């Protein structure tokens, strides 16, 4: 993945507007957070291949970390801490944020076809 280039990502986000798309939205601090630090506990959530349709999409940030917001008819999809992007299989936009060790902390993927099982 590459550091987020706002113009490119914004352009791709807009290509999904008013289409039924599949998303993967995830955040995690790892399955061993509390094992290695007794003051921490494991936090994570993911939703995979939820179908949504958004009318507006933006990526905004300070040049290092970014937030993405997708405006749905009845709500929002939101992700924070995004730092990198890639286009997977030509049509799947992957946005992710990693910690200093390169471990995934947050991910937002958007695709016009279902994401892999």
């Amino acid at each position, binding site marked *: *993945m590459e550091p987020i280039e706002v113009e490119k990502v914004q352009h791709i986000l807009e290509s999904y507007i008013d289409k039924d798309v599949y998303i*993967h939205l*995830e955040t*995690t601090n*790892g*399955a*061993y957070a509390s*094992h*290695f630090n*007794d003051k921490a506990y494991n936090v*994570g959530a*993911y939703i995979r291949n939820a179908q949504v349709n958004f009318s507006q999409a933006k990526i905004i940030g300070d040049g290092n970390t970014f937030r993405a917001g997708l405006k749905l008819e009845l709500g929002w999809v939101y992700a924070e801490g995004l730092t990198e992007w*890639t286009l*997977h*299989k030509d049509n*799947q936009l*992957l946005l*992710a944020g*990693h910690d200093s*060790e*390169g*471990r*995934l*902390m947050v*991910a937002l*993927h958007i695709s016009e076809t279902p*994401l*892999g*099982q």
Partner: protein
Amino acid sequence: MNRMEKQVVVILPHPDDESFGAAGTIAQFREQGVPVTYLCGTLGEMGRNMGSPAFANRETLPDIRKEELINACSKLDIDLRMLGYRDKTVEFEDKQEVAKDLKHHLDELEPSLVITHYPEYAVHPDHNAMGAAAVEAVRLMAPEKRPVVWAQAISNNYTAELGQPDIVNDVTPTFDRKMEAIMAHESQASGILGQFRESPALSDDLQEAAKQQLGVERFYVWNFK
């Protein structure tokens, strides 16, 4: 480790569980000519380590880890069966269905020994769930056909609650093979080995830290009474 085994089946949920947890013991069995089959539950699809520097992403990770798993099993010279469950979801499957699935393999392979995780003491929910299903699969077998089960605990509190493990296996003689298997899991190895450095009790030197942490493999013999 004195008894000669006929066939060993390792039942763990993630690619790399076999290498970090039991590769030294597995390598010893292979040196004795004992066949070993790994029933690997998932492809570790939801792992957060993406390589260091990162070369995987969430969408490419399953195929990458599958390849790493095949390579690690080849280094260990063991048979591999991938069970097709999904990372982080094993505990939400029907336990009896998973147990029946595992029993099907055990009935066919007729192992003398099964190695799995100790349910409730294995930290990751997939470890606990796969361990519980493995124990259940063996329990479903006729008592005279049951293999011995070695269960591996990982939690920080396990000796306090379970007492000393029955099997304390010094794997120094096969440690190089174990590290080869671990390093075959390229996307995971450096991240996980790196976590040992976060523990102040362990050395900064990665190889040394790995040896302190991974040079002994411990198991409890499951009691079906």
